[in-house]
């Protein structure tokens, strides 16, 4: 008898989970995927993979996958299955009606970092060229928008300065607000390899994460800061570098704006940032701040990797600038082994950032207010474009609550579960007259949607992703789209229904259009990637196969120089009080992915069937809590119920949870504060209290949840 799971076909593609973007061979039998094999030639992963990419692929085939378009006039009505033509016509009719009644700017669009570069580019084209406004945003708004802002201000490019393999030349690795062994496991393994070879490790994180201590990994310095004090601690590290003259004067004079360096020295060199002053504020030993500063400045090759623990704060952009300032001051940019590198949460956050799904910039981070840039897009697209920035996603929701914003096209995103202050998001959704949701499943947002376009998974379409090291790799169609259309085709047909004529034979033609309109992508094409496997931007006539390390000779700013921003510490308005004495922070776990839309529909849930609340023993005793007890956690914004786990990973005064499960509703408690520059939500600091409750009725035991997940 033939082996029923023996593959008949193998297609090289790119994993759609985290920002590492591993290459995989997707192997099929008939129209079913039977296994995912890590691709040895993949330049991001060199044949390695994690438990998500390797095993969590079956979601595409989940029984609740929606396979026909749905419409309804009111969110109180049941869904009605319709043809694609009827769904496009209905959604287009509603958007036109709303714009006629409430104005051109009453509608917007949001794309996702789970979409390909081509889809993200098309969604901004839909908003700008077809809806006629710049109300276009993407989910990087709520994760790495401060990266784009903060790094561009200092070093000129909102992207990782290095390729992943660069870490193998590093002597000192500083990880800030990230947990790569869980969140970016394949990169985490590369980091551990370098640590085994003797590299020193500094971790700045409120929680004693798996990166601080686990197999093959132990931090030389762990600054377990109080949530919300990133900028204070980074300024204090800078203070030591300035006062002890550990900076690289030759680099600064050759490569940076010296006057701004002097201004920066005056600010961070002030006594108010001395470790002895900041230590008590951040709840760390001043001697550890000095050790971290000396280690980092001493190199010889020091590199920074950071995550959402830096960005998701009211001073998220300031925190990113601090990292840019540090790299410049110590000359840790422009060669292998050094750098400042964001670890991107989703597979295509970097692409989402690059390709103009922002209300203020076109692809290539060029302002919509700039006449020359706008003209190049107008010439290509044949329409006059709005010269003013549009609304950001949180502003769209604010405007919906106020009544000035009435419709939204949401591609591959679940704002109701993902965005902060869930009650506010739901109020916004309910106030809109037409929400068009384009996704695989009826997610939490679908409860408030009027049109549902059934999308295609990354296994069912062609395109490209840009990973956290700026590497553009091919996403290849492994099986036919289950609902009949690839995502890029859905967006194009929706644009057609709205009255804008355009067509592409394949998404390679969209990438060609991207290349014509975006300097860093000017050399990219399907043909190039098919030929060399992948390419890191900038990819252009000077670097026809791409660029591994940025900033070697100059920074991509007008004068070619790096610069320093003044990064004063401004404490967040979110404070503990008698009523809410604990600080909640959040993170991810190895086996699950973000809000779990995909991984929760796979057997990976056996490993993580529910979100739990980590709490220090001291705080647990003070509340009469035992390990495994159910608790109610309350904030100014709402309350949720989940199980407690007593843990030494969090300090007294800090609690921690993951946000993978819709039923635990972590974002019902998170605050509505956001980054000053980008409105990126402050997910990482919420004042809460925790009280023991009886087991909620109708709650399955943990064991039963595991069994259910395994079935």
């Amino acid at each position: 008898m033939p082996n029923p799971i023996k593959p008949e076909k193998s297609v090289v593609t790119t994993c759609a989970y985290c920002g590492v973007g591993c290459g995989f061979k997707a192997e099929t039998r008939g129209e079913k995927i039977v296994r995912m094999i890590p691709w040895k030639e993949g330049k991001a992963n060199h044949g390695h993979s994690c438990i998500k990419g390797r095993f969590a692929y079956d979601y595409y085939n989940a029984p609740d996958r929606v396979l026909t378009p749905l419409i309804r006039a009111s969110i109180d009505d049941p869904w009605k299955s319709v043809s694609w033509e009827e769904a496009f016509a209905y959604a287009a009719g509603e958007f036109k009606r709303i714009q006629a009644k409430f104005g051109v700017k009453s509608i917007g669009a949001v794309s996702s970092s789970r979409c390909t570069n081509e889809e993200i580019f098309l969604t901004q084209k839909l908003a700008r060229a077809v809806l006629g406004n710049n109300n276009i945003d993407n989910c990087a708004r709520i994760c790495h928008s401060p990266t784009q802002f903060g790094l561009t201000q200092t070093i000129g490019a909102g992207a990782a300065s290095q390729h992943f393999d660069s870490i193998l030349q590093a002597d000192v690795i500083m990880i800030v607000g990230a947990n790569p062994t869980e969140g970016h496991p394949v990169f985490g393994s590369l980091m551990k390899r370098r640590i085994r070879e003797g590299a020193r490790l500094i971790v700045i994180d409120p929680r004693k994460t798996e990166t601080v201590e686990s197999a093959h990994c132990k931090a030389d310095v762990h600054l377990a800061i109080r949530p919300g004090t990133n900028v204070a601690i980074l300024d204090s590290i800078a203070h030591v570098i300035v006062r002890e003259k550990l900076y690289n004067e030759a680099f600064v004079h050759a490569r940076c704006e010296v006057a701004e360096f002097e201004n920066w020295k005056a600010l961070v060199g002030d006594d108010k940032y001395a470790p002895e002053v900041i230590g008590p504020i951040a709840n760390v030993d001043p001697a550890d701040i000095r050790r971290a500063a000396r280690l980092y400045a001493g190199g010889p090759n020091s590199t920074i990797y950071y995550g959402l623990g830096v960005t998701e704060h009211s001073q998220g952009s300031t925190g990113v600038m601090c990292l840019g300032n540090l790299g410049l001051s110590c000359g840790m940019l422009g060669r292998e082994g050094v750098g400042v590198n964001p670890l991107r949460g989703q597979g295509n956050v970097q692409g989402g950032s690059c390709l103009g799904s922002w209300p203020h910039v076109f692809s290539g981070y060029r302002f919509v207010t700039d006449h020359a840039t706008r003209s190049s897009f107008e010439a290509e697209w044949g329409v006059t474009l709005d010269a003013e920035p549009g609304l950001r996603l949180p502003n769209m929701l604010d405007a919906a609550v106020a009544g000035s914003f009435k419709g939204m096209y949401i591609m591959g995103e679940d704002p109701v579960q993902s965005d902060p202050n869930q009650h506010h998001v739901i109020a916004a959704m309910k106030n809109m007259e037409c929400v068009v949701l384009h996704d695989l499943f009826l997610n939490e947002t679908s409860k408030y949607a009027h049109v549902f376009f059934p999308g295609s998974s990354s296994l069912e379409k062609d395109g490209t992703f840009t990973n956290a090291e700026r590497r553009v790799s091919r996403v290849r169609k492994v099986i036919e789209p289950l609902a009949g259309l690839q995502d890029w085709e859905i967006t194009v047909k929706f644009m057609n229904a709205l009255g804008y004529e355009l067509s592409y034979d394949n998404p390679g033609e969209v990438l060609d259009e991207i290349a014509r309109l975006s300097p860093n992508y000017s050399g990219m094409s399907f043909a190039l990637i098919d030929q060399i496997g992948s390419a890191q931007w900038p990819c252009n006539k000077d670097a026809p196969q791409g660029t591994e390390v940025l900033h070697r000779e100059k920074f991509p700013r007008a004068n070619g120089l790096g610069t320093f921003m003044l990064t004063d510490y401004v404490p967040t308005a979110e404070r503990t009080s008698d009523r809410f004495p604990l600080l909640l922070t959040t993170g991810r776990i190895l086996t699950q992915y973000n809000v779990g839309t995909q991984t929760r529909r796979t057997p990976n849930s056996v490993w993580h069937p529910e979100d739990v609340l980590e709490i220090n023993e001291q705080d647990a005793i003070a509340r009469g809590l035992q390990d495994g007890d159910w608790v109610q956690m309350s904030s100014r914004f709402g309350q949720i119920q989940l199980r407690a786990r007593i843990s030494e990973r969090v300090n007294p005064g800090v609690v921690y949870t993951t946000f993978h499960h819709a039923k635990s509703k972590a974002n019902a408690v998170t605050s509505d504060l956001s980054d000053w520059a980008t409105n990126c939500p402050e997910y990482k600091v919420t004042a809460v209290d925790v009280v023991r409750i009886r087991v909620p009725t109708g709650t399955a035991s943990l064991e039963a949840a595991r069994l259910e997940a395994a079935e």
Partner: protein
Amino acid sequence: MAQTNSPTQGAEMPVMALDRILSMANQIGDFFAPYPPERRAEGIRNHLRTYWDPRMRDQLLQHIAAGGAGLAAPVIAGAKLLQDEAHAKPGYYGPPKA
């Protein structure tokens, strides 16, 4: 179709709640506080001009015209430069210019 202007309401309606506008503006002011007054005002102007929807800017300026209660003085100074054509500059990245 893309260029149709808003025919009816929308323009008169505030784009979002005023307290949201004011708290965002004050946060921007906090960031630029370490810069000397002239650069601080320009930093605030450039940020509002480059990143804010014009309706949000109008709402802020109308509130300033009505007295600007709840706004820090440097924010008012920076926002007012939006109305002064002599201060118009193309958007830019980097430290505020003098």
